[in-house]
C-alpha cells in the first residue's frame, strides 16, 4: 500500500522522505490549502526544490489546493494549480467543483485527487467526480466503516485513500461551520480551523482554560492532557450533563486495521499532521512504513507506539470499527 505523509515545511518534507514516505502532501503558504497556519507551508521556490528532492529519492509530491475559492478571487487558486503543475507535482488534491472543472479543462495532464474536503462518501458522488472531472483518487471522509469502504470500492473505478493516523475530524468535512461561527474565519475558504489568531490560553485556578473567539471551550485540570482548541472537541454542559458533546479529544490510529483496509481495496494510507513538527513526522512515518511493510509480508501489525504524539494522549480506530461514540 502507498503511504501518504504530511509536510508543513521543506524540512518536514525531507524528513518524511528519509523516514520512508512513498508520497508527501503539502500546500502553498496561502489560503488555497486547508492548513493555512502562521509559519507553515511552501513558497513556489521551496516547493520546486522539495519536488526535486522527493523525486530524486523516489517519492511523489501531492499539492493540496483544497479550499473553496472566494468569488472574485479565483485567480489565486488558478495560479496555484498552474504552478503546482509546472513545478512537477505528481497530483493536485482538490475539493471545489469549479476548480476541478478548471483543472480538467486547462491542465488535463495534471492528475487530480479528490480531497476529503469534498466529503464524497458514497459511490454516486465518487463516480460523478470521476466521470465529470477524471478524478483518479478519492480521499474518503473519516465517517465510514471498513465494510462500507469495501462496498464503495466495489462500485467505483478510482483509487481510494483513507486516513490512518492523526487529528480526527468526524464532521462533514468541507461543510463544517463550527469554527466559522466562533471566529468568522472559515476552515473551508480561509484554510484555518480554529485559527490561532482567535485562540487564547490562560491558567485559572490551576486549570488550563482555552478560548476560541471568546468562547470558553474547555477547562483542563492540571494533571490532565490538553486537547486542541477546536469546538468539536470542546467540553460543554448540556442540560444536566457536562462532557465532550460532539467528539472526544482523541486521535485516530488505525494501524491494526491496515490488513482489513488492504482487503477492502484501499490503495493509499494517509497520515494527518501538516501542522506538526519534523519530530512527529519522523516518528509517525517510520512507524507506519514499518506497518505497511509488515502488511505486505503478512506479519502482525505493530501497536501502541504513538500515543504520546496524539491529542489527548489517547487513540481510537474512529468510525472504521464503529465502537466509538
Amino acid at each position, binding site marked *: 500500500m502507498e503511504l501518504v505523509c504530511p509536510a508543513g515545511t521543506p524540512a518536514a518534507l525531507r524528513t518524511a522522505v528519509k523516514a520512508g514516505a512513498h508520497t508527501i502532501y503539502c500546500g502553498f503558504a496561502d489560503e488555497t490549502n486547508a492548513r493555512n497556519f502562521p509559519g507553515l507551508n511552501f513558497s513556489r521556490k521551496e516547493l520546486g526544490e522539495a519536488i526535486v528532492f522527493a523525486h530524486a529519492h523516489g517519492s511523489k509530491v501531492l499539492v493540496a489546493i483544497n479550499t473553496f475559492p472566494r468569488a472574485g478571487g479565483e485567480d489565486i487558486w488558478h495560479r496555484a494549480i498552474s504552478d503546482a503543475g509546472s513545478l512537477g507535482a505528481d497530483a493536485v488534491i482538490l475539493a471545489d467543483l469549479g476548480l476541478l472543472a478548471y483543472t480538467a479543462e486547462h491542465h488535463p495532464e495534471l492528475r487530480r485527487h479528490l480531497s476529503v474536503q469534498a466529503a464524497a462518501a458514497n459511490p454516486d458522488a465518487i463516480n460523478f467526480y470521476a466521470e465529470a472531472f477524471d478524478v483518479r483518487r478519492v480521499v474518503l471522509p473519516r465517517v465510514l466503516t471498513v465494510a462500507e469502504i469495501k462496498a464503495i470500492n466495489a462500485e467505483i473505478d478510482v483509487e481510494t485513500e483513507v486516513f490512518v493516523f492523526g487529528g480526527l475530524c468526524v464532521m462533514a468535512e468541507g461543510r463544517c461551520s463550527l469554527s466559522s461561527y466562533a471566529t468568522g474565519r472559515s476552515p473551508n475558504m480561509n484554510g484555518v480551523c480554529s485559527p*490561532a489568531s482567535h485562540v487564547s490560553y490562560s491558567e485559572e485556578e490551576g486549570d488550563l482554560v482555552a478560548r476560541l473567539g471568546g468562547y470558553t471551550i474547555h477547562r483542563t485540570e492540571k494533571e*490532565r492532557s490538553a486537547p486542541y482548541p477546536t469546538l468539536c472537541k470542546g467540553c460543554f454542559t448540556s442540560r444536566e450533563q457536562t462532557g465532550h458533546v460532539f467528539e472526544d479529544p482523541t486521535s485516530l490510529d488505525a494501524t491494526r486495521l491496515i490488513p482489513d483496509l488492504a482487503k477492502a481495496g484501499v490503495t493509499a494510507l494517509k497520515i494527518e499532521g501538516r501542522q*506538526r513538527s519534523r519530530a512527529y513526522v519522523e516518528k509517525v512515518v517510520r512507524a507506519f512504513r514499518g506497518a505497511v511493510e509488515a502488511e505486505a509480508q503478512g506479519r502482525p501489525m505493530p501497536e501502541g507506539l504513538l500515543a504520546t504524539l496524539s491529542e489527548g494522549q489517547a487513540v481510537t480506530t474512529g468510525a472504521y470499527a464503529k465502537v466509538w461514540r
Partner: protein
Amino acid sequence: MTEDLPEIPQTVQVAMRPLPLRPVSILLSRLARRVAARHPDLFERMGEYGGARFALDMTDQPFVLLLDLGHGDPSIKAMRRARVGAVDATIRGPVSGFLGMMHGTLDGDALFFSRDLAVEGDTSSVLALRNAIDDAELDLAEEIGIGSTSVKLLRQAFGVVERATGLPLNRHQMTMEPYS
C-alpha cells in the same frame, strides 16, 4: 500526564542564580544575530510576526529570556521573572523542551498535550515561531562554532553532556534506513 523530560539539576539552578544578567544577555544576543545571519529563511517564515517579542520562561533556570525578533535584527535579554514586562506571548517549559523542539527530537504539540509546554498571549506568533524554528533545522554547535574544527569539538562536548544529562544538545541526525 507530563513526559519524563530531563530538568537542569537543582544545584546547577542555584549556581546560575548569581550570574550577572548583562553579560549573559550580550552573549545570547550575539548568538541570536548569528542565527539570523545564517538562517534568513527563518525570518521570512515569521512573516507578519517578524517583530514579535517572546518571554521564554524556562522553568528550570533562574531567569526568563526575552526574545525580541526585531524584524531580522534580534536580541535576547535575560531578566528576573518579576521584571518581565509586556510581550506578545509567553512560552513556558523546561530547558529540555525548548532544546528538543529546536533540535528536532520533540514535537511542540505533544509537549502541549502533555502539559510540559504552556503558552499565553498571541498564539499565532508562537505558532509562527515554532514552525519557523522547526524548518530552520538549527544546531547549537553550528550556531556557536566558528569553523568546522570548533563545531566538531563543540558537538563532541555537547554529546558528552547530552549523554550525562539527557538534555538534547545536538540536532537529531536522521538515517534513511531501513527503507531507502
